[in-house]
């Protein structure tokens, strides 16, 4: 594949995932509102937010390192889009995607630390701990499908294996891995039980506190793209992926995606925020151990 086609794929994936993610974010807000007996925002809300943010003044704090401050959100959004595009076109390797999906959090950490704000520092300290926490179970959740498809980590291999011989979520270790993946994804996207890095009430959105204008919009966009790409990744790993060959197959893929998304939204709306030590104990104590056990199970063929 030459570089031109790669760029074309990337741009198409970026636009598709951006629109998709903003709609998914609306679903998340709307569902939260309906569960609280509110009406909730209209469907175009997140698009309006983004356009508005692009029209606002972009402030760079005096104490900030302006180069890093500007590049952090740009890198976040590009990495999220790259990971999403790879998942969407089922190219690349699960381990590569694992790396790319970690970059948006790193971007938030670097941007927050360059902004020179005290509350941002509290936010990034939490974000770092959280990153260390959820990456371990998430890696476990990636290893299980790789083992099941005969030690192949290529996404296309994992998906075609499932389309030939049944989805991985049908086995014991598959179910465990699926649950672990959903929980770690919740932490990765920063949805409520694990939103302590941007806790609005106590540390005023943490690492993003000094961001304004389009830079803040880019952070929102990268989160939106993660909200589209993350569940898609889980669908590819455990639920047999999706394909766009016929309308029926596309609808089935969409349903799988919605299943994961709704699961995450329900988790979000039924749980209070955890404290950082509780979150770490949950990820390292509970989930990671369960992940190792599931890997063992997958190894002996369950």
């Amino acid at each position, binding site marked *: 594949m030459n570089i031109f086609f790669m760029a074309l794929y990337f741009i198409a994936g970026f636009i598709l995932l951006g629109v998709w993610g903003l709609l998914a974010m609306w679903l998340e*807000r709307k569902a939260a*509102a309906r569960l*609280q*007996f*509110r*009406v*909730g*925002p*209209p469907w*175009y*809300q997140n*698009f*309006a*937010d*983004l*356009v*508005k943010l*692009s*029209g*606002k*003044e*972009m*402030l760079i704090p005096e104490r900030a390192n302006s180069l890093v401050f500007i590049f952090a959100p740009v890198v976040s959004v590009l990495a999220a889009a790259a990971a999403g595009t790879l998942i969407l076109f089922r190219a690349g390797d699960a381990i590569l995607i694992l790396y790319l999906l970690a970059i948006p959090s790193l971007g938030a950490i670097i941007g927050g630390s360059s902004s020179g704000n005290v509350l941002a520092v509290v936010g990034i300290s939490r974000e770092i701990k959280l990153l260390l926490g959820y990456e371990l179970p998430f890696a476990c959740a990636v290893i299980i499908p790789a083992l099941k498809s005969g030690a192949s980590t290529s996404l296309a291999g994992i998906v075609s294996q499932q389309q030939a011989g049944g989805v991985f979520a049908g086995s014991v270790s598959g179910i465990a891995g699926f649950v672990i993946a959903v929980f770690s994804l919740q932490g990765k996207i920063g949805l409520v039980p694990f939103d302590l890095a941007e806790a*609005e*009430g106590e*540390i*005023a*959105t943490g690492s*993003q*506190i*000094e*961001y*304004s*204008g389009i830079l*803040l919009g880019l952070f929102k966009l990268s989160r939106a793209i993660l909200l589209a790409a993350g569940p898609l990744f889980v669908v590819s790993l455990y639920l047999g992926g999706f394909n766009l060959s016929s309308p029926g197959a596309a609808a089935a893929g969409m349903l799988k995606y919605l299943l994961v998304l709704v699961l995450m939204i329900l988790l979000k709306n039924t749980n209070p925020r955890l404290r950082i030590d509780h979150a770490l104990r949950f990820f390292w104590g509970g989930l990671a151990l369960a992940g190792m056990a599931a890997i063992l199970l997958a190894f002996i063929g369950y």
Partner: protein
Amino acid sequence: MDIKKRAFKRSLWVYHLSGGSCNNCDIEILDCLTPRFDIERFGMVLVGSPRHADVLLCTGIVNKKCVERMREVYDQTAKPCVVVAIGACACSGGIFREGYQMAGPLEKIMPVDVYIPGCPPKPEAMIAGIVKLLEKIK
């Protein structure tokens, strides 16, 4: 009207700034977020940082300790940003007009776009005020 203005009107992010209020106005602001009034259907959300704010909701007489801080917060917001004075205190001084700590009203500190009187104003009054504000942004 261009698209950015329209988006701005559909997505007002609110930052709540108290300049020595008696806390009653602040409670009424929170009322706007409850299921009965639910301002999120107009795209308004409460944000935690002045950098994200499109609207500053200011309550209270501005007392002498607060003046510098309120100016600072106003300077920190990303423009365009509108300022709403909520309650009799912020509009004119209210019952604390003769108080020894009075340094306001708010319009002495920053340019105010909308005044919503009342002690405290009802949530309906605040929503009506915001609607008038939206008509003003053209």
